[in-house]
Structures are given as C-alpha cells and as structure tokens.
C-alpha cells in the first residue's frame, strides 16, 4: 500500500525483462567501494579452495586456454539500473568446478583489493555463472572488473565480484563485504532482495 505522490506520473516501461523497482540503463555505470586495483595478468591467479583446504589454481595462460563461452544476458544492479542484452565471454564455473570434490553448500568469492561476496554454490553451477574476461568483444576494462570478474547475472550485480581471484567453498554460509553492511545474502532481483530482511 504505497503513498500516492501528487503530480508524479512516471514513465511507463512495462518491459517484462525489467525486475521490479529497476529502470533501463543504456550506459554501463561503475560501482565499487574503493580504487580500481591494478591487476597484472602476468601475476594473475584464480584459486578454488574447498572446505578441506584443497586448492586448485589457474594462471592467466591456463585459464584463458580453457573452453570459453559467449554469454548474452541482462544484468541488474541493486542501485536500480538494469542493462539488457549485454555480451560477455568467459569460462563457465561448471568447467572450473569440474572434478573438484566438495560437499560445500556455499562459496565466498574473493577479489584483488579485498572484496568478498557470498553465494550458494548451486547458483554457480549448471550454466548460471562464469569468470568473464571479455565484455562487448574487448578485454574487460579494469573499472568493470578486468582482467576477469565473476558473472552471476541472475543475482544482483554486486554478487558478480570484480577482479575475482578465488572461491572459498564453505559448508556454512558467511557474509561478504556488502552482505555484512546490510545487503541481502541471496539478492534475487525478481524478488527484490536488496537488503537483509527483504
């Protein structure tokens, strides 16, 4: 039961691709908590660590030699913008998680610069998540998370950690950077899970 705002008519954009409370953005806004870290692909490493401490790592050459996929997807930021039909290229998490024994239910994505975000592990499987290194046919720009970022487009975009360098698989959920500051643990844009309690 919303308060009606006198004189506000708004602009109807009944696009079925827009989740509730979102508006259509044509540019690509940048959101991050601090400076853009300089990440050199010569020293880049991506590591998956299981709940037992077993680690699997890829350097940039090994990572970019893995089978890659082209992804066309809509993205939704918790700050209310959505961008439709974005184009990415990256490695599916299915490929990276393949053959890693785990009974973990959750993952903490970790980044150069110290950013973290938590996700249920099933949300990273079955063709729902990638480590992306190209955007719109070009290497991913540093301010958009380059050289590589997590891409989990079915959740609000803060879950798609920029400058990602690893996943810690966890049996119990823990909160990441924004989640500790009150943002939702799951972040489904279609259920408008912006903040804890939504």
């Amino acid at each position, binding site marked *: 039961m919303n*308060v009606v705002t006198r004189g506000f008519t708004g602009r109807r954009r009944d696009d079925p691709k827009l989740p509730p409370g979102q508006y259509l953005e044509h540019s690509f806004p940048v959101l991050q908590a601090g400076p853009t870290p300089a990440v050199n692909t010569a020293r880049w490493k991506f590591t998956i660590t299981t709940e037992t401490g077993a680690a699997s790592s890829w350097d940039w050459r090994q990572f970019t030699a893995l089978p890659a996929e082209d992804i066309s997807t809509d993205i939704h930021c918790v700050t209310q913008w959505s961008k439709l039909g974005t184009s990415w290229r990256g490695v599916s998490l299915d490929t990276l998680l393949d053959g890693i024994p785990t009974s973990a239910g959750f993952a903490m994505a970790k980044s150069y610069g110290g950013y973290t975000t938590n996700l249920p592990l099933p949300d990273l499987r079955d063709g729902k998540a990638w480590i992306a290194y190209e955007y719109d046919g070009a290497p991913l720009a540093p301010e958009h998370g380059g050289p590589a970022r997590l891409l989990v487009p079915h959740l609000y975009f803060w879950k798609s950690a920029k400058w990602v360098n690893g996943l810690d698989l966890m049996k119990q959920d823990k909160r990441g950077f924004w989640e500790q*500051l009150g943002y939702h643990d799951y972040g489904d844009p279609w259920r408008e899970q912006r903040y804890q309690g939504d």
Partner: protein
Amino acid sequence: MARTAVPGRLSWLVATVGETKEETATARTLALDVPGWPGHLAGQHVTARLTAADGYSAQRSYSVASASEPDRLELTVQRVADGEVSSYLDEEARTGDQFEVRGPIGGWFAWQPDDPRPLLLLAGGSGIVPLMSMIRTHEAVNSRAPLQLIYSARTPDDVIYARELSERARLSPVIVVTYLYTRLTRWRKTPAQVTPDREVSGAQKHGGLLSRHLTHPAEPAAASDLPPVRGYAGRLSADVLAKTAFPPGLSPAVYACGPSGFVEAASNLLVAAGYASGDIKTERFGPN
C-alpha cells in the same frame, strides 16, 4: 546509532516535503519530514519510491545532504537528462507532497564522527552531496579533524552549497575549500602554475593548520595568509593534489564521490601519489 548501516529490516517511511531550495539551475534541496527516520551516518543514502495514482512506482537512490537528526533529512537532487524521478523532485514536488523513503543504506562510504584522522574530501559535481553531510556533521559534533574539500565543478554557477561552504571555511579554523573549475579557461591559474613563492606559502598554511589542530587542538585559529576558499581553472591532477591536499604521510581518510570518470581519475591519482588504497572510499554515480 549502530556502527553498521542497516540494522534489521528496512521499512518504507512516509516522507513529506517541507522547505525546498534551488541550489543551482539544475539542483534543488528538499527538506523532508520523515516520522520514524532513525538518523544516519554522514555519507549514507536513501532509496526514494514515488508512486503514481494508478499504482506505477519508481525507485531511485539519493545521498542524504544533511547531518543526522531524527525524523528529518534533506536530499539535494541533481536533475539528470531524461530523469524520471529527478525531474519530478527538481521541478514538480512542492511543500506537502509525499513519497516514501527507506534507509539509511550503505555503511561503507560513511564517516564516523569520532574518526580523528584528517579528512580529505574530493567531490565531482553533485558528488558533493554526501560529502556535505560529512562537513555538516563535522561541525555538528565539533570535530577537531582537519578537513580539506577539493570540489570540481564546471563553473562557479554549478557549485552547490557555495555560500554555505565559503561561510564554513571562513569560520572554521580547520576547513579549507579548493574549487576546480573544469569549464573555465580564463580564471585563476591552477596551483601547478603559480609562482614558487605562492606554492611555498600554500604549503606553510597546511603545515600550520595541521600542527595547530593535531598537536594543539584548543589553540584558537591564527590569521592565515591564504584564503580558506580558493578557486582554480582546470581539472584534478597530480600537481593539484600535491599542492592542495594533505600529504599521504598524514594518512587522511579519503572520500571521493562524483561521476564515474571523476572518481576513477581521482582514485588513480591518489593511489599513484602514495595514499593507501584502504584509506580511500569511493562512491560513483551516472554513466561512465
């Protein structure tokens, strides 16, 4: 209030427009009466939800401009081209109109009033808004932290809160304001271009300010040979930073807010100049 931003569930509160004030040709402040508003940390924002008579609603995020107080807050809204909500708030909303807000949101880009570190604020355009909340809070709590604002705007006419900033800088012994006008060419030279004598006296002023307020906090302000408010033509650069900002060795708490391009440039300059990444907090808005 709690140090974490968002305690428990955030519910929508009814906001009633009180006074409004035109700040520039394209920015307007709305004072809102919000019964139940718990107060906020300087730097935090709210989500505003406007609902049309037929039930259609739209949400946008706005930084709080005022210092924390219960049941009341101020937003300063910069009109954006084609802005569905900003054009309503800037042009249509009037005293007595109602919409909804929830918050405060965002406990990262926030200044704790008991933080004793020097405060270096970098604003691009309407990125001044959350920083103004910090400046107002700084006075409200009688903070002794030396404060520098470097505010990049297109022209003097685009400066939001110009009169209040001048007044605060004039009255406070710890506040120094530097304007950078990016669309002016025939204005004062940038600090990078001024004569060596003047550069030296500028450095002395900062040194004097700091030693006065870091080591003798109760000592009254001494007359200064440089105005507490200065304006230059040009953009933020390594030279401007070196000649106007607290040096990295003082480990200031740095907050940079503005359009993405400004914040990207500012934070890269800061890191290159030796400021610790962990001391730099950023908030960006608008397209790249």
